Structure formats: C-alpha cells, structure tokens
C-alpha cells in the first residue's frame, strides 16, 4: 500500500482574509512496512498533512497517490481508501459515542459493510491487539479511564483492518504508564506487518521506535531520512523549536567537552555503551 505525495499544498479558508497555508509543496513516498515518525512544532502542519493521506482533506494543489492511483480522481471510493489507511485522530476518546465499548469498536467495520460474524471477529482481534480486556466490551465507554478509552478508539480503527495506520499524537495527555503501554501496542502492531506513521512532538518516543523521521517546519518538509541521521542534528532541531531526544542532548554536551562519543545514538542503552567505551579509552574503566 505505497503512498506517494507530490507537491502537496493546503490552504485553509482560501480566498478569505484569514487564509492560512498550512502545508506547502510536500513530496515523499511511503513504502509497505515502514515505521515513520512525523515530527514538528505545534502548528507546523502535521495534522493537516496526515488528513490528506486518507482523503479527509482535499489538496489545494498537488496529488496524493495510494497504490499509484490519485485518490481524488474520478471513480475512486474514498471510503475504500479510508479503510486501507486508518487514521487515529488526536484525543480519539472524544469520538466515542455508542452505549457499549463493543458497539463503538464495531462502528467502523459495520459502516464498511462487513457481516455480523466478521464484525465480531474483527472487534475481538482489535481488542487483542491493543490489549483491551474482554470484560470491558459490555461496559459504557464513558465509564473507562483515559488510557482505556484511547485504546478503545484505536481498536475502533484497527477493527477496519487498515494496511497503513496513522496515529496523531497518540500519547498526548496520558500518564507515563498509559503512554508506555500505547507505544508498546504500536510497536507490536508494526511487527504484524502494517506500516505505521506516528505523529508526535515527543522526540524521545519517536527516537525509540521509528526507523525513518520526517520533520515539518512551518508547513514545509525540512528533513526526511533515517532516524539516526535526523536526530544527530540536535542544533538544527532546536532551531525549529523541537526538543531533541534527551540522549542526543547528552551526547552533544559530552562532545562539546571534548568527549569522542557518537551523537547519533537513539536509545539510553546505546548511549551507555558509547560512554563506557569512551571511559575505557580514557583509561578510567577500572573505576566502573
């Protein structure tokens, strides 16, 4: 399910005094099975960009190709596109409305015309994927905790069996435990073979999980490459109001002090290994 975006520009409220060009001349291609982190400061256009990928927003100019087909050309069913490319909105718990958790998760597959039996199976499967207790299915979604409702909402998208999963700031507003659980879920999901686009302004999460990073700044795609490459440019990220991952900041500081450590580490473990190596080189390893 490759997605290709060409010269994509979107202007909100075109032709009025308050028109805003939210994204400008964006180009990229996403292949099957990728795990992409989309980062950028608030207002940089992340949400606008991803809403184009499943046809919720229409480009002001440019094209979005899914499987090589322009999704806005005649005869393309946007409903089908939306089934293949699942999009979990920011604060998805605000979209639940059914009386029971089961019904809410089943809303998507029912809309797409699956039989009752298929729907049941897909709801169960989705619950398993996000680690949702079977017992909750008969409860009202309005009784659940924040982290739980969010998982219900994500399950609601997974139940339509998308090939690509896009999540807009899935951890925003969760406590550390809820956040870790959601991120673990997402990692597992990617391992089942679907492509994932994770939108976030938390660099630590993205650095730990994503293989490829795209950076938006004021509506322009200013970096797109392997996570290591992008995150090693700590100064650049700071210049566009992004906080580089903590480990990257640490490594930069050590380098400033003359330590010969790499600055493209992504996890705490890697950072530890680098520091130990440097200490050994300096001959203080005996102390550890």
């Amino acid at each position: 399910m490759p997605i290709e975006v060409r010269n994509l520009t979107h202007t909100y409220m075109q032709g009025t005094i308050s028109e805003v060009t939210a994204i400008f001349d964006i180009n990229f291609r996403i292949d099957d099975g990728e795990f992409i982190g989309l980062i950028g400061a608030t207002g940089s256009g992340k949400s606008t960009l991803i809403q184009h990928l499943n046809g919720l927003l229409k480009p002001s100019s440019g094209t979005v190709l899914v499987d090589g087909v322009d999704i806005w050309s005649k005869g393309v069913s946007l409903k089908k596109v939306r089934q293949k490319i699942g999009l979990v909105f920011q604060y998805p718990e605000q979209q639940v409305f059914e009386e029971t958790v089961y019904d809410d998760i089943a809303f998507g597959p029912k809309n797409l015309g699956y039989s009752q039996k298929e729907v049941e199976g897909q709801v169960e499967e989705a619950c398993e994927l996000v680690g949702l207790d079977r017992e909750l299915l008969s409860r009202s979604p309005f009784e659940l905790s924040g982290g739980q409702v969010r998982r219900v909402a994500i399950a609601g998208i997974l139940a339509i069996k998308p090939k690509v999963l896009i999540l807009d700031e899935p951890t925003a507003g969760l406590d550390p435990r809820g956040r870790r659980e959601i991120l673990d879920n997402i990692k597992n999901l990617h391992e089942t073979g679907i492509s994932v686009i994770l939108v976030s302004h938390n660099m630590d999460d993205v650095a730990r999980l994503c293989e490829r990073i795209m950076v938006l700044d004021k509506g322009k795609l200013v970096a797109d490459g392997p996570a290591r490459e992008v995150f090693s440019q700590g100064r650049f990220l700071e210049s566009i109001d992004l906080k580089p991952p903590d480990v990257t900041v640490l490594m930069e500081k050590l380098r400033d002090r003359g330590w010969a450590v790499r600055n493209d580490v992504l996890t705490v473990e890697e950072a530890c290994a680098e520091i130990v190596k440097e200490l050994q080189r300096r001959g203080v390893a005996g102390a550890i």
Partner: protein
Amino acid sequence: MISGGAIIGQYYPVGSFVHSLDPRAKILISVIFMIVLFVGNNFYAFAVTGVFAVLAITLSKIPWKVLIRGLRPIVFIMSFTIILHLFLTPGQAIFEIGPLRATWAGLVQGMFIGVRLIILIMFTSLLTLTTSPIELTDGLEDILKPFSRMGVPAHEIAMMMTIALRFIPTLLEEADRIMKAQMARGADFESGNMVQRSKSLVPLLVPLFVSAFRRADDLAMAMEARCYRGGEGRTRMRELNLSTNDYFAFGLTIVMSALVVYTRVRFGPVIPRGAV
C-alpha cells in the same frame, strides 16, 4: 468541511473611520437606518439611503468584493420575492404564461423590494464587519442597561452572547474534527434519505454534546474561581466613550433621515395608489 465563515470570519479587521466608531453609535445608526429604509417609499429615497450606504462602505475600507459575497445567501430569497411581485401585482400586462400575468407595476414593485433588500443587507452587514464581537456585546449591554429597571437582564444577555460568540468557533472546529474522525471510520454524512441522514448524525452529535457540556462545566468553574457573581458593581476594562466622530456620524444619519422623510412627503409611493 463545516465552515464557520459566515459567522466567525465576519469581522474584517482593518483600521478605518467606521471601525473606530463607538459600537453603541454603530448599533443605533444601524437601527435608525433600517427604519428609515422602510419609511422611504420611492426611488428618490433610495438615492438618499444608497448614497449614505456607499459613503459608509467607502469609509469602512471593506472591499466591495466582501460585501457582494455577503449577498450570495439572499439571492434565492430575493429572486423569489421579485418573481412573486412581478406576477401577483395587478396592472397592465407585460407578458403572460398560462394563468400567470407579469405586470409593469409588478416589475417596478419587485425591483423596489429587491433594491431595498440589497441596501439593507449591505449596510447592516457593515455593522458586524467593522465591529468585533466583543465590542458588539459591550455596546449592546450599554444600550440595554436603561431597560434593566424594567426587568431586562442586560448584563446576562451580553454575557451569554459573549460566551456564545466565544464558543461558536470552538464548537464548529470540534464538529469538523469529530465528523472527520467518524469519516475515518467509514461514516457517511452525505448520502441516503432523510431518515438515514438524521441517523448518521448521532455519531457526530453525541460526542459534540458531551464535549459542550464538559466545556460549560469547566467554564462555570473557572468563572466562579474568579469570583464572578453577575453584573452588579462590575467595571469594564474597555470603557466606551463617544467621540466627535460619533457625533459626526449621528449628524449625517439625521440629515439622511430628514431627506428620506422629505422624499416621502414630496413624491409619495413608487406606485401611486389608484394608478393601476
């Protein structure tokens, strides 16, 4: 996409003579203008009110494009009115379609109503185009204040309007977002018959109400935390003061009103009674 353009995008923030006028003056002048527009009963009156409107629009620096766009919603209603008049006024026939008879008197009458509507919409939209919602509610509160002794809750009305104006864009934005979120789950808001369509609104309305109630709760709490207890003894951050510009505008309005009354007395109705 749901667009709140008609309601929110209304205020056109440029600096101009009209923008700088006191909101109370603008509200009163708009009311007077509306009355005068209906007092005028011939095309000479339109010459007066028209010149006044064009002058106001020029002074407001609002592009004509914006005002003409504002007329779009009433095109249908206007054509309807004109056609009704054209065929339902008795008089000398222009042409006939079956039992329908278009008359010269109807044509004149229809044109007359049409012009009146155009002037009315253009001038009154000037009020909201040149006055921010906050100014507008402040002005309204002041105008209503003398009536509070008669039991009109002036402060409460103004506060309700302020809150509504504050939250309309938020709720529209939210409705837009929830709608898109449900569309991402295959919801269809556009096709089907009436019953199916109203049913399809449930996934939009339930979350929207839940969030509106939550917001209302939060707002009440926040207002209480800041010791809000109604309008009594409350002072304003922005005090309203009438300036020479306001008196000048009032003066012009009076002159215009007088002229319209004169045309009415001097020339009489556009279709003189008994002429047909």
